């Protein structure tokens, strides 16, 4: 089912958290709301599931306007960050609760619980209580509870935040599998870009209550609209160089190096610019030579990570296949692929 937020605004008292936000999530799509904490992504999620009411604007599920409907009548499934399992109920009662409150016959509930728990692979745990489950199992119970009444939309609020690294990897693909199998429209709230990129069809990056960009993960990575987006995606993160425009080229702060860039042809001289270079675009290959000193070197097993300090003191990060000829303190002359560099205006807009 399609979800549409139309000019959605939310304030708490005098603090405006979100103003006139438009967002459309296609039917069967999984969308990530990605952003740093405090950007309003959880507020958006709470408004969609009806725990908060929008200050203004509309929320539509399909063609149905649910703006002022209470949560109980919205048919949404939510997986909370803490899972919010009911501690005094068994797994079976937990999963069956959404059906129990609708007064479905006990037999039907039992059948549906059996189905859904098989789907999330916890059918052997039905008699236990939440306290007797591991984090991953609790997560699956929460998923099963959210899915059992076939909601119009599945909302996931930082679902992986409380899991350890290995389980996180496992649950990532698990949630995606379930979403695909059930064909449900899903919204994932997260501050982890890896989660967002690996699990979702599209990502909406939020900052201070606004959506900065909505795109597929690869589009967003390769074509960020602002410096914020470019900085948020990618691990290790992108490096930024400060400088000026000078006759179709980027000139670093102290004028030490010059980078002719096609995209700068129409930019007036002297305009302050920021250059963003992803670590994989700075290394042995490329069309522009940059000289610097290795200030930090770290191996990650398959790859090595280097920080190179340039003459003006700014730092470029580089990631390369493992090599052992470069040491801390060495002077290096590495290349940069100029077509892969992003140029941002002073306000962060991509040029």
């Amino acid at each position: 089912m399609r979800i549409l937020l139309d000019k959605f605004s939310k304030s708490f008292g005098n603090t405006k958290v979100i103003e006139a936000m438009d967002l459309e999530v296609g039917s069967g799509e999984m969308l990530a709301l990605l952003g740093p904490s405090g950007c309003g992504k959880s507020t958006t999620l709470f408004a969609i599931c009806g725990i908060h009411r929008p200050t203004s604007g509309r929320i539509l599920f399909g063609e149905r306007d649910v703006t002022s409907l209470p949560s109980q009548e919205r048919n949404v499934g939510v997986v909370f960050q803490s899972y919010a399992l009911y501690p005094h109920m068994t797994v079976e009662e937990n999963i069956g609760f959404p059906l129990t409150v609708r007064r479905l016959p006990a037999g039907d509930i039992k059948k549906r619980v059996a189905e859904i728990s098989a789907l999330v692979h916890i059918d052997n745990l039905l008699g236990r209580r939440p306290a007797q489950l591991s984090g991953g199992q609790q997560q699956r119970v929460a998923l099963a509870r959210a899915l059992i009444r076939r909601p119009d939309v599945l909302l996931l609020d930082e679902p992986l935040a409380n899991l350890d690294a290995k389980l996180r990897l496992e649950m990532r693909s698990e949630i995606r599998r379930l979403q695909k199998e059930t064909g449900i429209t899903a919204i994932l709230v997260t501050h982890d870009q890896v989660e967002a990129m690996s699990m979702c069809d599209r990502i909406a990056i939020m900052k201070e209550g606004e959506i900065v960009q909505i795109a597929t993960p690869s589009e967003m990575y390769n074509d960020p609209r602002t410096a914020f987006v470019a900085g948020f995606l990618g691990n290790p993160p992108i490096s930024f160089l400060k400088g000026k425009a000078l006759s179709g080229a980027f000139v670093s702060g102290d004028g030490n190096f010059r980078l002719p860039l096609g995209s700068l042809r129409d930019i007036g001289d002297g305009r302050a610019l920021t250059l963003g270079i992803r670590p994989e675009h700075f290394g042995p290959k490329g069309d522009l030579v940059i000289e610097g000193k290795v200030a930090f070197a770290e191996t990650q097993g398959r790859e090595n990570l280097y920080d190179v300090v340039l003459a003006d003191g700014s730092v470029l990060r580089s990631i390369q296949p493992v090599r052992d000829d470069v040491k801390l303190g060495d002077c290096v002359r590495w290349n940069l692929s100029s077509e892969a560099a992003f140029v941002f205006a002073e306000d962060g807009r991509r040029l």
Partner: protein
Amino acid sequence: MRTSRTLGIVMIAPAAIMIFLFYLMPAILTGIFAMTNMSTATGISGGVFQVTQGAVNRLGPDMPELASGIAEPRFVIDEEGLAALEALKLKPGYAAELRGQHIGEVFASRREAERVIKALKDRPSTREVKQISDLFNRSVLNTRFETRDALIGNLEKLGFRLKPEEQDKVARETYTGWVWTTDNFKVIANSPDMAKIFLNTAFYVAVTLMLFNVSYALFLAVTTHYMPPATASIFRAVWLLPRITPVVIYVLMWKWLTWDNGFISMFMGQFGVPPKNYLLDNAYNAWFFVILINGFIGASMGMLVFSSAIKAIPQTHFHASEVDGASRWQQIRYIILPQLRWPILFVTCYQTLSLLASFNEILLSTRGGPGRATEVWSLAAYHTALNNYTGNLEYGLGAALALMLVIIGVILSLIYLRIFRYDTLISKPLIED
């Protein structure tokens, strides 16, 4: 918004109603009663007009004539009396002659009236004379009049002509119901008894609070802290007993300890000391035990509060201080006590109010005695309004005494709310529906 609001109002209604009926209304009524002179004598539901000997005495100084006049019986030969006489079916001549010869006559005493009756032609017997004279008795002394008009009307019939302001005064002095007055507060402000009770209360609260509710509680909390947990919880359980034990039994045990056939007397008897009632033989002993009785109860709260505060101090602080060479006393002085500042303030505030209001233990042990040596404010309110030897329960004065406590309580608790940052205790609901 609507659903949770409606549900909220429905769910809080029973509590609100109960608190209103049995808490707020009594508080307001206490204020109202404090402004009246209600007592057993006046009743609580209005009164009548009655010329009592007391009222006559009060009228004496200003209106001596009236006072002596209404104190005397009056006998009036009137139609009402004659009708009653006829109804008695004695000799018909009596009524006829009285109507013919004496109608309208007023006699200042029974003797004068009876002289006239005895002189009737039909010669009534002595018994009949008495019977007849009763019918014409129109005295107001000790007669009850339902309204003021009835009282004044009767007085006029008896020949007392009163000016309006005199009528007011008579009505006021003869009214037996309660009236509005601020006398209660004047009594409280001026009576030396009240001053004594005030000092008693201050002494009782201050000493119990400092010695037991704080100091002794602190002692218990600190000593149990330096014990293995199992032993500590036994001691804490023992010291919680006074609070958990019903007050009647608790005080009974103290009586057993202190009375002349009790433990102390018997124990001292072994050394030849004659038995006596240690609880009530003199004011010093009475105070000693009153404070002990209340202090043992009061210590438990502080003990628990302080114990949990000490438990909240990170163990590393203790370890570090010991490594740094602190003695036990220094550890208490520099590690424990500084952390207990707020709990001590809290217990002090809280228990001040509790002690001000408490009187069960004193009532059951010394009843405020010997004399009124251990009478405290709340007990005085109870004695004045609900239970005293003279039997005249002065609800109005008692309510005024109670009102002072209520006002002190409200003021103190408002201050405490400020001190203890009450506003941090309310959080906004996170669900908007």
